Each structure stands twice: as C-alpha cells, then as structure tokens.
C-alpha cells in the first residue's frame, strides 16, 4: 500500500468516518468523493445533504462542485440554502466535513483573513457554510494537508469553531454540535484529547513516523499512547475510487503514485 496516493488515503479515511444511516452534510472536493465512497461500501443508507439545497441526489457523474447541475440529478428534494442550513440547527445533520486555510490546536479554523481584519494582508473567501457546519452538525471532520503554515499556534481570525478556547467554551456559546472529532491530513489522522480538547496524533499513514507528523504541525501535539498505523484502504475502495467515483482524478490525484 506504500504506493497509494495521499488523496486516496485521505478520501478513504474520511469515508470511514461516515456511519450507515447517518445524514451527512457534504461540500465540494474530497468530502464528496468520501461521501460517495461510503455510500458505495459500508454506508449505503447514508443520506447526503448539500448546502445548495440538494437532498439525497443520485448524480450520474462526479460533480465539480455543490453548484454543479450534475449534482441535482436524481435528488429526492431540491430546496434552498435556508432549508439545508436549518437542518443543521435542528440537529438533523450527524456529520459534516470541512477544509481550511488555517487550523489551531483546538480545531478552530480560519478562512477569512491573513493579517488584520479591516486591512488584511490576504483576504480569504469567508466562512460560507463552514461556521454553520462546525457549530451545529452533531460532529464534524476536518480534511487538511499537514503544513506548519496551515496548522498554526494562533489563527489570524477565528472563522469556524472547533473547541474555541478549550473545555466548556462551545457550551458557553450555546453551540449545539459537539465539535470536531478528527482531522484527516495527508500524513495521518489526528483526534482531540478529551480533557484538554487539544489535537493529538491517533493514526499514521504508511511510511510516516509520528515525528514526521509533528514537524509538519506548527503547535505541540498532545502526547498520546495509542497512536497506531492507519488501517490500509482495501482494494475494493481504491478500485471504486479509480473506476466509478473519480475516474478522471478530479479530486483524487495520482491514484497509484507514491508521495
């Protein structure tokens, strides 16, 4: 399995987070690939919801984004943004997936600015549905490549809530969801220490040592005794990715290339 592409490892790891029968809130890119992989394997009953207002679609080909008309095909309901987002607030969404520009040790995310808010060095796209998903999905998963510029000690701006300032902070803010459960990177999978709510390394990908992961993270990871090797993707999963779900490599690049 050492030749499996990083994208494929991340997509498979993300798909494993989805349990059968759940309702998942899905965005563009690897989350879409992960969702359809889960649906095709261990979670055939997963109900997919998209922020564009599409519910339970059956697209014939992989959509380029949540706004792609291909995604709407075969959906059981087509509504608006309010409908999709209010499902989060009601607690109907079991799991969401988010990408990010910056992330800190508590799983808080920044997609707003680098530098000062009013005169930023770099203006980023903004929250979109990210803050809503992180605040209100029952749980959520972050997908982000490991990089000290991305995993930072202090965010330039806190767009999207992980555990905010630490234990009890989400509850004080009245956020209904329980917060982030996993951070899937290209080097391995991180989780959160239950006591401090800070990130810790839980699984490593093939050929990657815990030290390598720490050197790609800009803050100190909480020590964790049970760090183990991630379960390898199965041939069936890789085959599905390659032949059915993302045959053109739109999001899962270099399916058989090594890092």
């Amino acid at each position, binding site marked *: 399995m050492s030749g499996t592409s990083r994208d494929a490892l991340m997509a498979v790891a993300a798909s494993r987070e989805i349990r059968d029968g759940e309702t998942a809130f899905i965005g*563009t890119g690897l989350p879409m690939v992960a969702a359809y992989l889960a649906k095709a394997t261990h979670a055939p009953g997963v109900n997919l919801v998209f*922020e*564009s*207002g*599409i519910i339970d679609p059956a697209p*014939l080909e992989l959509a*380029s*984004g*949540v*706004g*792609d*008309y*291909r995604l*709407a*095909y075969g959906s059981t309901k*087509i*509504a*608006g*943004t*309010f409908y999709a*987002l*209010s499902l*989060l*607030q009601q607690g109907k969404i079991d799991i969401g997936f988010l990408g990010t520009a910056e992330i800190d040790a508590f799983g*808080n995310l920044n*997609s*707003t600015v680098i530098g000062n*808010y*009013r*005169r*930023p*060095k*770099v*203006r*980023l*796209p*903004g*929250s*979109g*549905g*990210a*803050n*809503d998903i992180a*605040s*209100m999905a029952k749980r959520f998963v972050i997908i982000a490549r490991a990089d000290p510029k991305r995993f930072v000690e202090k965010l330039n*701006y*806190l*767009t*999207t*809530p992980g555990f*905010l300032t630490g234990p009890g*902070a*989400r509850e*004080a*803010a*009245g*956020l*209904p969801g329980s917060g982030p459960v996993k951070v899937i990177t290209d080097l391995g999978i991180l989780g959160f220490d239950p006591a401090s709510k800070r990130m810790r390394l839980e699984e490593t990908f093939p050929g990657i040592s815990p030290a390598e992961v720490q050197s790609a993270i800009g803050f100190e990871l909480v020590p964790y005794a049970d760090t183990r090797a991630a379960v390898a993707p199965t041939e069936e999963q890789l085959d599905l990715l390659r032949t059915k779900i993302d045959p053109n490599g739109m999001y899962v690049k270099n399916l058989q290339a090594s890092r």
Partner: protein
Amino acid sequence: MGHSKLVSLDDAVALVEDGMSITAGGFAHSHQPMGFFRTLMRTGRKDLTIMGVAECWVAEWLAAAGMLRRAYFSNFMFEGFGRCRRFSEGIENGMIEAEDHSHFGMVMRLAASGLGLPFMPMRSQAGTDIMNVAGFEHPAAKAQMFRSPFDGTVVSLVSPLKPDIAVIHAARADELGNVELYGTTSVIEEQVRAAAKVIVTVEEIVTTEEIRRNPQATLIPGMMVDKLVHLPFGAFPLGVYGYYEYDGAALADYYEASRTPEGTRVWLDTWVHGIATHWDYLDAHGASRLLALRTDPHLGYRYDIPEGVAR
C-alpha cells in the same frame, strides 16, 4: 386583472441610485443576474453596498468596476477557479469594507427583515470572530448573545438587513410578475422578502393561464415583484437551471484578466464598456455558442454527445 410589471432593462437598472444596498440572487456559477449588472456597470453608479451570501460574480464584477463600497456577506469564491481577486484586493487595499457572516447568519438577517422582526435567534456564529471582531458594523449592532426567557437556552440574536433592491434572475414569469424558478433556489425567497424593491429578470414570459395551471411552481408571487424584465440569457455567462450551463471559457477569460488591475481594465473595456446592449453582448460570443450551452431537459445539465464512428 392586475397591471403588467414588464419594463425595459434600462428602466429597471435606472432604479439603482448611488449609495444603495443591493442583494442579488444566485450562487456558484449559476443564476446571478449578470445581464442586469453589466448594464448597471455602464451607468457609473457608485458607493454601492452588497448584502450577499455567495453571489461571487456580482460582487466581483461590481468590485472590478469600482462601484462597490461595502459588503455584508458570507463567502465569495469562484468554485473550480480560485479567489475573487478584484473583490479580495479591494478589501486588502482599503477600497472595500467587509462585514463577515456565516451563510446562515446572512440568511437569518435577511429573514428577520422579511418576517418583519427586530431580530432572529440562531445558534451558529457564536464564540467566533464573526461575532467578536468589528467590520464596519459594531459587533453589538450585528449580533448579541441571549438567554431564552423560557428555558435559559443560550442563543445569539442577529439584527435585520433590509436591502434597498433585490435583483433576481429566474426562469419564467407572467406579466403580473408571478415567477417560476427551477433547480435550487439559493437565498432568493429571503432576499425577495427582505428587500424594499424587487426586480426580476426572466428567460421567458408565459401566460397567466400557464402559471395558474401549476401554482406550486411559483417561487415568487407577483405581489412581491416591482419590476419585471424579459431577458433571455440574462445570467450568461453563468447558467440557469433548465436552460443553459455556464460558459467555462468566458469565466476563465475573466479569471485570467482579473490577475492584474490592468488586465481587468482591458476586460471591462472589451466586455462591458465597449458593448452597447445585452443583445450585442450575446452576439459578441455568438448565437451558436450560446445554444451549445443548452441543458438536456431530463438530465438538467449539458449532455456531452459521445463521439463515435457513424456508419
């Protein structure tokens, strides 16, 4: 029998004055009323405020034309391309002021206005810099934490946003302004309810009989619409569900040009200021190119005719 809401595009655009706040329908590369905004961009209106959610092309082109002063919004980003450069750089160099929200935050502020309420309770945005860091609004004027008087649940309250004008591009309408839209409806219902005035541009005009035959397809009843414009390909180069997909080459062309202020200026001269009417703009691309974007009536997207060797 009510009176016709039909007006010319120029007459509809004339409703927009300097300093007004505008909200536009659509999302991603879909449904935004670009025909209306291209015409607006030729009028030299300025100091506009956008109250948006994710209508990236409207925000970006208004920014490119130097017409945008302020933005209440959630997320402006070109799916499949990258960032909205003119908008982003406008904020970076202080020409445009931003007030950030989550998607739901913007939807709820518009909904508060549309429901005639002084605030809407909601549960996201709390605890983050969206609530705590000031843009051009004082944080307390935008959102405040609140404890329910009934059971003590912690929520946040957001204040209403009332745009002066909502501009929506839709599928069909009758002359009374009863509007049908296919596919996802983004934030259109909330935008229409919130705005003081509503302008709708549509691909087709149909009879009232046709509307009456299928009332559940009506997204916006005529009573909510002030002005109606018959504007075929009114979202082009973006798409309209049930009619045509977006023109990737035209979008890529803008995206490339937007790398620099100079490239943007040339693009504006070519595609906005150098073109007199909506029909001229369409013909500058060519009828055959536009017709090639048509969606398959069952699939809902453009059918790629597979190649083969005919006998």
